[in-house]
């Protein structure tokens, strides 16, 4: 049995009288691709903020990479990578500058950074565009670069928040090739998506409804339990009766 790299016990966050995340308990194992699904407003973002050390929980327990989410947020941030469609790289910096900037933030030394940066540009076949403003690159390339930059400091866990939004179906699948590669090398992948076919690519999937985890299992088991053909059906069956207005 692999060790748990994320473990939560009745993790809760309230905003005033509103309970955004309501006593969620689950664990994610090392090297796992864990899909974290839920409708807009179900509490995913709040839960992710707590797990990445950006928001203190109201109650409950959680450890990420062995560190406590109340007291050791700095250590958590050093042990994780983060990428989302909304926040990734700077468009008005070049790929090389982005690597240097984010590598620096993640605490890499300049020598290490130069070495790793060059290797990265080479592996992504980006050498020719290394000094072009990022804005001029296709979205698919930016996403690959953002993903690789988030892995530069060799984190134990990478959090991907809707990493594939808006890209074409070929680029989306090439991105998943990279996710598989990272998982094969031992990185734990925690990923959110609105593409239900991508839920099928995960080892296990949790579905949040109204602040709680309504289901958590492998895609195969979920489909079997809900007597559904696809994860889309499972999701719609669970999320449709949500009481909380999507607000």
């Amino acid at each position, binding site marked *: 049995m692999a060790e748990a790299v994320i473990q939560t016990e009745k993790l809760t966050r309230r905003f005033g009288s509103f309970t955004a995340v309501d006593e969620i308990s689950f664990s994610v194992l090392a090297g796992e691709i864990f899909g974290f699904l839920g409708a807009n407003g179900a509490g995913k973002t709040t839960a992710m903020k707590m797990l990445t050390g950006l928001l203190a929980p109201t109650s409950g327990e959680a450890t990420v990479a062995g560190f406590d989410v109340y007291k050791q947020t700095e250590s958590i941030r050093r042990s994780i990578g983060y990428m989302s469609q909304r926040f990734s790289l700077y468009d008005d910096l070049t790929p090389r500058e982005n690597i240097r900037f984010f590598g620096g933030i993640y605490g890499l030394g300049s020598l290490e950074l130069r070495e790793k940066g060059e290797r990265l540009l080479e592996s992504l076949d980006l050498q020719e565009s290394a000094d072009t403003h990022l804005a001029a690159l296709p979205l698919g390339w930016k996403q690959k670069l953002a993903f690789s930059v988030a892995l530069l400091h060799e984190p134990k866990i990478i959090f991907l928040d809707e990493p594939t939004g808006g890209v074409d179906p070929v680029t989306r699948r090439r991105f998943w090739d990279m996710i598989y590669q990272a998982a094969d090398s031992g990185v734990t992948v925690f990923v959110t998506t609105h593409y239900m076919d991508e839920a099928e690519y995960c080892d296990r999937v949790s579905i949040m409804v109204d602040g709680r985890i309504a289901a958590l299992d492998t895609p195969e088991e979920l489909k079997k339990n809900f007597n559904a053909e696809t994860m889309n059906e499972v999701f719609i069956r669970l999320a449709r009766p949500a009481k909380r207005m999507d*607000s």
Partner: protein
Amino acid sequence: MSPAIQTERLCKQFGTVEALREASLSVAEAELFGLIGADGAGKTTFLRILATLLVPDSGKATMLGLDTVAGYREIRTRIGYMPGRFSLYQDLSVEENLNFFATVFGATVEENYDLIRDIYVQLEPFRTRRAGQLSGGMKQKLALCCALVHRPELLLLDEPTTGVDAVSRQEFWQMLQRLKAQGITILVSTPYMDEATLCDRVAFMQEGRMLAIDTPQGITKLFTRSLFAVQARDRHKLIRALRSYEHARSAYAFGSSVHCTDARNAADPSELAAWLRSRGFDDVTVERIEPGIEDTFMALMEEQPAQSEAGKGDNG
């Protein structure tokens, strides 16, 4: 009947980026038409020209029979446009936004309430909330209400479901079907291939061109090779193995299986199964399947030589 939307060889360039390259399209009255394509394909530029917000470099477009350059004033009063980025006033409430947009068009919410009622009832509990405080799904619904409140004959919707969850997406498409039933022409862009099947006709856009225009069923006929759904326990290993198969043109994950395109037109699934078994995939199953829209789009994309990979900007 003259088409509700007609474009002829529309071209638009931004600096060195060719956003549209002779894009021609015709949409019939009361048709629900899908514009499918990735970020940067030119969808937004195309819709902005139709919305009379951009002028094409060359080519011609008519909306409801009116030229988009000469007739822009009248077009604007008769169409509804929902841009890709949230464009309502964040610091006005739900109600204030709706009233504002009605007033701009010389209409009232009351007189056109029947058109937006289905959507607006879901927003009603939040009618005094500022638009900026709404979640993604609710913002989309409000934006649709605001685009509809002057009872337009034609709707242009730019990626209304991007970033919206599967349940809200389904609801949104049910609303579009109801609007179509009332005779409203709808041109909607989306990066979600599954939404293409909900349209009367679709156009695949890539690098500023219309790659194919047809009904969802017609589009899949463009896929002429053999397509297999392959399943085995270790999917990642399976994909890698399939890509090394000499007859494989492509292998991509598709839900719980892997879709493998055989470069030959009439390939035998048992041949591939035997090959995989010889490589240690004891539990493999191979089944011939009919291509879906996504299979077809991916095949069309790959057949197009990449024009300007690195030079192509994200013109969202």
